[in-house]
């Protein structure tokens, strides 16, 4: 620590920061520790060491089915929100039309709207429409909540694009599509990737929209896990949770590699 903080002030700052780091990590580490506990009930402190709960989880048809659904749903959501979001971000940065600010506010509004209510409202309309395929309904709901993330990250990276390079490409005879593909896209690639990764992670973990639109046949991972919490008391629930934690960590490390965490989230 540099000389900015000293004495009691520094001590208090460091004490609180350390305590908060422990606070943040404790529940995750505990879940991971209990997942290898060789006991038939979840207890503290964990006893022995076994991987049998992982074997149980990885042989659990419901969990694997949910995993498959969640991954497909998250991939579809990523594709969908990029397809809608990247052009929209382009319009917001490059466009010059009446009501631009209002439209930007509208496109970002699912972010401040409680997503629990977004899901409920969507359920009502989809029911009226007679749309009964839970997978399609989930895809629509997830794109609604993830598209603002794509817009934010892509808008930020588009604002940093050097338009002179595009002009140069155009002057040298490249058409607009080629210019976008060869000049603009490489410059915003990290923003697009971050947006896509956000969309994937938000979709994979989403509960408040999912809980309305899923049904007993198609239940993504968070819903299955929630059901297991209530019904199962052996360490297979922490094993399931640990798998989810590890997947999330891979996502975070990817994000850190691609754009740097602070930049991705400040967007």
């Amino acid at each position, binding site marked *: 620590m540099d000389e*900015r*903080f*000293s*004495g009691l*002030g520094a001590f*208090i700052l460091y004490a*609180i*920061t350390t305590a908060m*780091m422990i*606070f*943040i*990590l*404790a*529940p*995750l580490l*505990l879940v991971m520790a209990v997942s290898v506990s060789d006991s038939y009930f979840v207890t*503290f*402190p964990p006893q022995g060491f076994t991987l049998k709960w992982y074997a149980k989880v990885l042989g659990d048809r419901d969990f694997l089915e949910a995993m498959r659904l969640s991954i497909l749903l998250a991939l579809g959501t990523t594709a969908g929100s990029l397809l*809608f979001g990247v*052009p929209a971000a*382009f*319009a*917001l940065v*490059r*466009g010059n039309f009446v009501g631009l600010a209002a*439209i930007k506010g*509208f*496109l970002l509004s699912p972010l*401040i*709207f*409680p997503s*629990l*209510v*977004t899901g*409920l409202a*969507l359920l*009502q309309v989809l029911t*009226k429409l007679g749309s009964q395929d839970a997978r399609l309904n989930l895809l629509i709901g997830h*794109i*609604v909540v993830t598209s603002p993330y794509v817009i934010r990250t892509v808008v930020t990276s588009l604002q940093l694009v050097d338009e002179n390079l595009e002009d140069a490409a155009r002057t040298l005879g490249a058409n607009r599509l080629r210019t976008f593909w060869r000049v603009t896209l490489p410059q915003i690639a990290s923003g697009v990737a971050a947006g896509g990764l956000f969309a994937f*992670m938000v979709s994979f973990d989403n*509960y*408040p929209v999912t*809980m*309305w639109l899923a049904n007993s046949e198609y239940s993504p*991972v968070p819903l299955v*896990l*929630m059901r297991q919490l209530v019904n199962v008391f052996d360490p297979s*629930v922490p094993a399931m*949770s640990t798998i*989810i*934690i590890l997947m*999330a*960590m891979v996502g*975070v490390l990817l994000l*850190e590699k691609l754009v740097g*965490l*602070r930049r991705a*989230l*400040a967007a």
Partner: protein
Amino acid sequence: MTTSDDAVAILDAQPEIRQGSRWRLYLPAGLLALPLLLFLTYFFFYPAITLLLSSIQTQNSQGIIGRPFTLAHYARLINVDLYSRVFWNTLRISVITSALATVLAYPVALVMVKSRPLVTRIITLIVIAPLVVSVVVRGYGWQLILANGPKGMLNWILMTLHITDGPVSVLYTEIAVVIGSLHVFFPMMVLPLASALGKIDPNLEDAARMLGAPWWKVFLRVTLPLSMPGFVAGFTLVFSLTAGSFVIPAILGGASAIMLGNLIEQQIFVVYDWPFGAAIAVILVGVVFAVNGFSMWLLEGRRLRRAS
């Protein structure tokens, strides 16, 4: 004859094509927003309006929602003690969580901004990483820590260290919900604070220090006022997200700390009372919008004051 006519036509058309391509240079940029605009209008805006409308309508015995218009559902939320208590619980839990998050996030954000790069990186990673772990998993982790009876981690620690004689009961209380919400939404406070603190010109603090101000005075008179935008943004985020939460109160609150989100779910999935569920949802949105509006007003006000 025809050929020359065609030639003339082509010659005439030439400038129009040029014109057209210049048009295309500007027009499509705006049009690119259209697909998402239509998508969100149909699957977000229209459903929200529909929900608002059904909150002031009546549901008949077949479950069909229609006229007459009524405000009875809102009256019920206010007048029935059970429901109004849930409303106040939600507000209280959200305010306490955001206040606690502010007090605890401030030191973390300060250390994050002003430490060596390695320390900053580690803290950033620890703060952000849990953000992408499912809320259900994090709630479950807290359930294990706070579990009532001697098998919970907290109770095991307390009893092993002889701090308490018997187990304490925290799980299924409001305290557990506050702890869980704090854990889930803490990053939403740290990040805006850190970004606001990062923007403060270090020369300002150095100047204050050189003029003889002790560290706490530098903090109170320079750092704190300049970080207000981050504070307002973080508080608003944490408040809004806590107020609209469902998973954490469902896992950690049990029957004694039900929040608006849980009440909505109950009304829709158990009671099938759509108009009442919709009315609660509208109230929830109203509270969130009010807080967001207030914070926007505050931020605008500050900007004006700084400019003058």
